[in-house]
């Protein structure tokens, strides 16, 4: 396995607050990796440490073979970062912004122009290259930010809540840009998010809470291990079905004319359906979502 990022026993305390509390994980090259957690879980602090902005209290980080604290400049050359709020210059055009920032990596002349053409193509910012950054819409800004972060063809791209604060349609577009770019360029993408839909599309998810890793795995694994399927039955008569379920010791919740029954195993549904056969108008079996898994793991809703 090819690990592009390896983090071991990372700690960062602010007085009593354990922002990052002994975290270890790795990221495989070329994968889309999601860091999922409620606000204040330690996502941004972890990213800030990996990206050389913050010194950890202890622990080690290596990116593409470069050790944090020793080869910081090499690390900076191999990472791209998209921050929660864009950090481009309001009064400069998108083109000026991308080119100036590109020159920070020692790019110039034809090399810079080629890199510029490439990122413009990959992020679809061509239509507003000559506009001032401050005059762009939220989605255009975000795509410009991503274009800037790609200018030096980083080996790994960090995105800190890249779609937060965008309207749903724009969010979808920006997300598509990220996924397409990740596939086309075969780039490793590390993102933090609190949108389940996004985490679901990742290759690997780590759920972080109170500075600690609460769970990890592919979205499928997490669902399988932490979320239950449920059976929904549209009943004919409420008291009858309640009696049937109660006498058989089955938990249920009544909601909008439906009885919702959590399942330990999907196949358990067959037996329950058999018991209530005469009382069913219709039914469906729903598989557990990542959201259910998240709530089961952290005990809280994600969007606080």
């Amino acid at each position, binding site marked *: 396995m090819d690990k592009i990022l390896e983090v071991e026993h990372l700690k960062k305390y602010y007085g009593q607050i354990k922002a990052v509390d002994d975290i270890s994980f790795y990221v495989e090259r070329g994968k889309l990796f999601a860091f999922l957690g409620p606000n204040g879980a330690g996502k941004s602090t972890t990213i800030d440490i990996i990206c*050389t*902005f913050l010194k950890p209290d202890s622990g080690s980080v290596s990116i593409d073979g470069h050790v944090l604290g020793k080869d910081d400049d090499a690390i*900076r050359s191999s990472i791209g970062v998209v921050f929660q709020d864009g950090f481009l210059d309001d*009064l400069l055009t998108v083109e000026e912004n991308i080119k100036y*920032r590109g020159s*920070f990596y020692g790019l110039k002349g034809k090399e810079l122009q080629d890199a510029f053409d490439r990122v413009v193509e990959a992020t679809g910012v061509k239509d507003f290259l000559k506009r001032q950054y401050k005059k762009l819409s939220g989605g255009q800004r975000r795509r410009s930010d991503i274009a800037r972060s790609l200018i030096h063809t980083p080996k790994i791209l960090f995105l800190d809540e890249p779609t937060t604060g965008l309207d749903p349609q724009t969010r979808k577009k920006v997300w598509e840009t990220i996924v397409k770019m990740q596939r086309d360029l075969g780039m490793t993408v590390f993102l933090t998010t609190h949108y389940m839909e996004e985490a679901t599309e990742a290759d690997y998810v780590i759920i972080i809470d109170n500075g600690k890793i609460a769970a990890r795995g592919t979205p499928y694994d997490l669902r399988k291990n932490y979320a239950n399927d449920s059976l929904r039955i549209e009943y004919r008569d409420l008291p009858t079905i309640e009696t049937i379920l109660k006498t058989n010791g089955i938990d249920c919740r009544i909601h909008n004319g439906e009885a919702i029954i959590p399942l330990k195993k999907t196949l358990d549904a067959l037996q329950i359906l058999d018991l209530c056969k005469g009382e069913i108008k219709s039914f469906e079996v729903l598989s557990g979502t990542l959201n259910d898994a998240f709530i089961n793991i952290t005990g809280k809703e994600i969007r606080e």
Partner: protein
Amino acid sequence: MIIFALRNFKVFIRDRLAIFFSLLSVIIIFALYTLFLNNAWSSALPDGVEGGQALMDGWLMAGILAVVSFTTTMGAYGTMVDDKAKKIYKDFSSSPLKRTSLVGGYIISSYIIGVIMSIISLVFLYIYMMIRDGYFLGWLETLQVFGLILLVTLANSAMVFFITIFIKSNTAFGTVSTVVGTLMGFLAGIYMPIGNFPKFVQGVIKVFPVSHAASLFRRVIMGDLVNKVFLGAPDIYREDFLNIMGVDFAFGDFLILPWMQIVYLIATTLVFYGLSLLIVSLKKQS
């Protein structure tokens, strides 16, 4: 470093409002002078003196040239404060750009902006004097003025840099630049000639480096005009005038010579940039 300076330069010149505010105190000095102060000071000269008006205009020109690079470099360093306030520096530090290039880039762009704005002011005042007084500065004097602009901007930008490294928010920056811009006219003896202040304030003015910048400019620009106006008058009048207007500075009987003032400005540059860079590098380690 050069490219980063270019970026700073562009960010500043795109911000019309910032340019206007960086020139505001100079515009106020000019307006106050042409509207009110001019009459007050020139009426102090004996009646019927030939060239009195030109002499006063030269005095104004020197004063403005001494402060314009202070206020405009301050405006230029506003970009640095803004980068701090908006956390744009975070993006810079995600790249392998060296911290020295970053600091160097801010210094270079501010210096260039200070020099350019001084030259623009010079041209404007040159035209003003030409129209009003029919007076031209000679080639040699123009060259000297130009040299002084380069030196004075260096000293001014050093002091401004020292102030701005402590400022973290745009509001604080706005307040500081307003206060500094207003004080500047008094501290450098530009709103009012130094001779009109009480002894204690005179002492403060004489220590302030910008006053010496003003004095140097006055020596060059007013030199010929003074000779013309005081032709045939007793030396004592002329000496009095030079002292009151802050052309010549003296501590007691000790007359300060131009070369001492140049050394003083160079020392100012070294001390303030030295201190600032020391502080900036200490901050980095913590």
